[in-house]
């Protein structure tokens, strides 16, 4: 049995979760990673995706858009721009995010166009995960 991690998920408006967990799967900007006890300290930005938290009793998933995660040996705190429990996330909600992102992409400067495209693609991938 692996040791416990303190996991915190906060959005600007509220604290969504704060509990002891065994592992956290994080959709990092450079690829997914899983944090367990004793992980090297890392700070990574997030891409839109599913954040999965495995605790001794249950597994909970959250749909997150941007933000970042701070991983230390004894805990993980995720600061997400927007986060909703996966069971509450509906296709329509993500669609509204996609529409919003498209609107912004249309206005964005050419330099930012690439990253916006990637952001939208990630959102669409997230959408397909939820629909499945």
């Amino acid at each position, binding site marked *: 049995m692996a040791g416990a991690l303190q996991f*915190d998920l*906060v*959005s*600007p*408006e*509220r*604290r969504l979760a704060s509990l002891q967990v065994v592992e956290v799967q994080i959709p*990092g*900007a*450079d690829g997914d990673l899983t944090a367990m006890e004793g992980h*090297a*300290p*890392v*700070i*990574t*930005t997030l891409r839109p995706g599913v954040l999965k938290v495995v605790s001794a009793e249950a597994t909970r998933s959250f749909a997150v858009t*941007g*933000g*970042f995660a*701070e991983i230390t040996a004894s805990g993980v*705190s995720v*600061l997400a*721009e927007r986060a909703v429990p996966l069971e509450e996330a509906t296709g329509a909600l993500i669609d509204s995010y996609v529409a919003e992102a498209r609107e912004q992409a249309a206005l964005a*400067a050419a330099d930012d166009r690439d990253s916006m495209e990637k952001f939208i693609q990630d959102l669409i991938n997230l959408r397909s995960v939820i629909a499945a």
Partner: protein
Amino acid sequence: MPNLKDLKNRIGSVKSTRKITKAMQMVAAAKLRRAQDAAEAGRPYAERMTSVMAGLAASVGNAEGAPRLLAGTGSDKVHLLVVMTAERGLCGAFNSSIARLARLRAQELLAQGKTVKILTVGKKGREQLRRDMSAYMIGHVDLSDVKRIGYAQAQMIAKDVLARFAAGEFDVATLFFNRFQSVISQIPTAQQVIPARFDDAPATASALYDYEPSEEGILADLLPRGVATQVFTALLENGASEQGARMSAMDNATRNAGDMINKLTIQYNRSRQAAITKELIEIISGAEAL
């Protein structure tokens, strides 16, 4: 001596004023609770955000090629003042204390030969500053339709500010808002957001961390978010302060109305007694004359 009917009417109108101020006070008290809860709920995010950014900023520091949001544009000619006030009045000195602080700062900067631009958030601040500062106003954000301040509003304001910064419209941005201390005390505060400053934030030891993608990459991603977070915190603090200020202003108004009712009632009773005495004298002297 005012006649009895007038006095009675005045007492009636002061009484209904007292009822209104009392009701407003209770509404403000209920809203204050909610606003305080919201401010409380937003705190962990803001704190974590600043501590991580402070750590990153310390390690990237003033190195060559640091993001402009952190290092600044290299000059401080043009200042943007973001003045946050309430949409509604009847909350004591709340709006005027922010407007006064902003006006003082603007005059100071102008005296130093700097250029000042003002972006107002909330109707009351715009009204107060329009009189003498209208030449410097470049925009206004209207939040009167918003029932509950959310992160979306903060993002909207931050996006506006960042777009102006990217377009080179200003060099330094400062937020003006009231920091909530207690129900009776709100502190007008000026907080510089661009370039970012972390004087009082405890920096997490950043050397410990690995960064993905890179320190610069994360910083570039975080700084705009940091601006939005600071705007959001300011909005929440302002919201709580507004309700606190309104609550104590309405409490005072209710008490004053009570005092006034007492005074008027005494005056009313005296006048009535005087009228009765006068009538009695008339009757008695009439009887004596017979």
